[in-house]
């Protein structure tokens, strides 16, 4: 059966619409390999658990100061929430008490950024991941996706915000280090480019093999993170997830997203073909004569 003008235009219209829609849906470009992200190196062998970073962070971001009664105690996990972007926890380990600072890891290829449908969560080219109120619609898909459970949501506000560490992005843009690194009295937090920090971490492990567990947490976790951790003990003892995949989380959805344009091109063609093919079998022959 030959295709007449009307069904040709019909097909053309369907294909046009789907092509237009299909092209919009593509996976975001990966950050270029040569981008030099900044990051932070946190050395838990140096941290004394003074919570100075918590106070500085709260002050810098207009959040309530931590309570003086709420101290890090081994066995009690203090969690980040919508009023605190970073917390210090204490862990009783095989090598005595160890303090660990937690905050957003600023992944190289963040799940939250890939999840965000309005680009409110943004991986800046300098490295920090920041949240933009004007874009966010509050769907909380970033919270579902983040493997570190970092973004926090103000459930009790009519105009809720997402709270998370932004690595003091406004300061970093001007080349100033984040407040937590600046105020740390024992230099447990070092600011620098990620490449320099990894070199520094390796050097520390090499120079003091007895003091460190030979592992840099964040070098490969979730495809690499902006925050890098050194520890005297295996990271499992410090409440870190040691089973996270080493490749990036957005890679998990790439396969699906890449299939979308193909389906958009193939499906209408197949469906129209099926329609034409089965139409001939239709027992109502009058219609065929009509067309």
């Amino acid at each position, binding site marked *: 059966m030959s295709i007449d003008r009307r069904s040709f235009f*019909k097909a053309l*219209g*369907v294909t046009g619409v*789907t092509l237009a829609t299909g092209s*919009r*849906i*593509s*996976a*975001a470009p990966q950050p270029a390999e040569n981008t030099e992200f900044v990051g932070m190196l946190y050395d838990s062998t140096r941290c004394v658990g003074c919570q100075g970073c918590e106070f500085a962070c709260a002050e810098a971001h207009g959040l309530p100061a931590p309570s003086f009664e709420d101290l890090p105690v081994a066995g009690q996990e203090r969690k980040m*929430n*919508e009023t605190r972007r970073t917390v210090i926890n204490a862990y009783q380990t095989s090598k005595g008490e160890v303090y660990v600072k937690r905050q957003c890891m600023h992944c190289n290829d963040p799940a939250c950024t*890939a*999840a965000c*449908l*309005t*680009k*409110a969560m943004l991986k800046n080219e300098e490295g920090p991941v920041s949240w933009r109120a*004007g*874009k*966010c*619609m*509050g*769907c*909380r*898909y970033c*919270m*579902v*996706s983040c*493997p570190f*459970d970092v973004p926090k*949501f*103000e*459930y*009790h*506000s*009519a*105009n*809720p915000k997402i709270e998370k560490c932004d690595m003091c992005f406004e300061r970093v843009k001007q080349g100033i280090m984040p407040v937590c690194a600046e105020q740390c009295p024992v230099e447990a937090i070092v600011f620098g480019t990620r490449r320099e920090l990894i070199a520094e971490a390796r050097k520390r492990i090499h120079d003091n093999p007895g003091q460190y567990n030979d592992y840099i947490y964040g070098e490969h976790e979730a495809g690499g993170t902006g925050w890098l951790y050194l520890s005297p003990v295996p990271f499992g003892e410090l409440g870190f997830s040691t*089973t996270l*995949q080493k490749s990036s*989380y*957005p890679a*998990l*959805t790439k*396969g*699906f*997203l890449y299939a*979308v344009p193909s*389906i*958009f091109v193939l*499906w*209408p063609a197949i*469906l*129209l073909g*099926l*329609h034409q093919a*089965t139409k001939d*079998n239709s027992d*109502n022959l*009058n219609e065929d004569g009509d067309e």
Partner: protein
Amino acid sequence: MSNANYTATGEISRTSTWKFILSELKPKGKLLTPFNIISIPIIITGIILIVIRFWKGIGSITNLTQEVPWGLWIGFDVVTGVAFAGGAYVITFMVYILNMKKFHSIVRVTVLNGFLAYLFYAGALLLDLGRPWNVVNPIIGNSFGTSSVLFLVAWHFLLYMIAELIEFSPAVAEWLGARRAQRILSGMTLGAVIFGITLSTLHQSGLGALFLMAKDKIHPLWYSEFIPIMFFVSSTFAGLSMVIFEGSVSHRVFSDQISESNRKSHHGILHSLSKICAVAMFAYFTLNVLVFVHEKRWSLLNTPMGYWYLTEMIGFVLLPMILYFISYRKRHITLIKIAALITMAGIIINRLNVTVIGFKWDAATHYYPSWMEITVTLAVIFTEIWIFRWVIRRMPVLREATGPIDKTVQ
């Protein structure tokens, strides 16, 4: 009664269309039916709760936590509701693409059901958005998060609602007596159907793909890279089971709307649907077994979550599949309806297992929906049924179309 109404509808002139719409807005039928007595207080409570939610924040009426940011409203209203709406794309596929005229009498009601499900359940999504005034950002403006699965799902919801509205629009035109518009709209049906099926394939699977990045949070028995395919395959029989269920209820409640010939053919339709469901469920079950064996999950079975998984797979997939097979062989209509109910329960269990029950299953504190979340969900469902009933009583959905007949199908 309905026929008399319809004749009146057919003859109205264009100038009185608005007057006609106004008159149609008035309720028909008795006010104090059992359904109304139950649904009205729940809808009113739901509206009050929604006001509180927008005034005091989402946390004021939900039990959501920082660890479990999506609860009943996403897991049930959106993810499960959309699976049940899958009947529309399957039935339009059979009727308009495969030209299976047998199912033509249920196309309109299924499409209406699908459209309303999207309207209300995707609409319920707005309740769950913390900053709903920014909801237009992914649609207009310069904020396209194209790497997001949710971006794709949001666009597809919007476009699919438009496609379904076009598919249903001839019935609206007929109700308003707009013959010419009806002819034009009918001509757009095939395009809308093709577009709609493509969109459905992608967003039914897309709802599953949403959870791909939550790899470490979902119980391994429910997480696999094949979630999108599982969601798509199960949406076919979820939708058809809903069609069976809805059809059985409609034939009882709206019996005055249904012609004698359609009443007779309905058993044949149910019969064919049961066969399609059985085959789709067999494929789904096999896929699940393949994933289970391939990922070597035997060690997970002898745990509480493992028993729950077996309950879902055997009690709510294998069992209704067998029931569908038997009812097809023995032409047993009641058994088909029972199988449909069990299948629907199974879909609810499956979607909640992925989105809520298996999500952070190992956390110290679990999420349970608050009574207020449940009430709002019920209010949404009841409001949808009210609208559904309003449309059925007025537009030619269940009753035979008397206007120019759908050209594409004939």
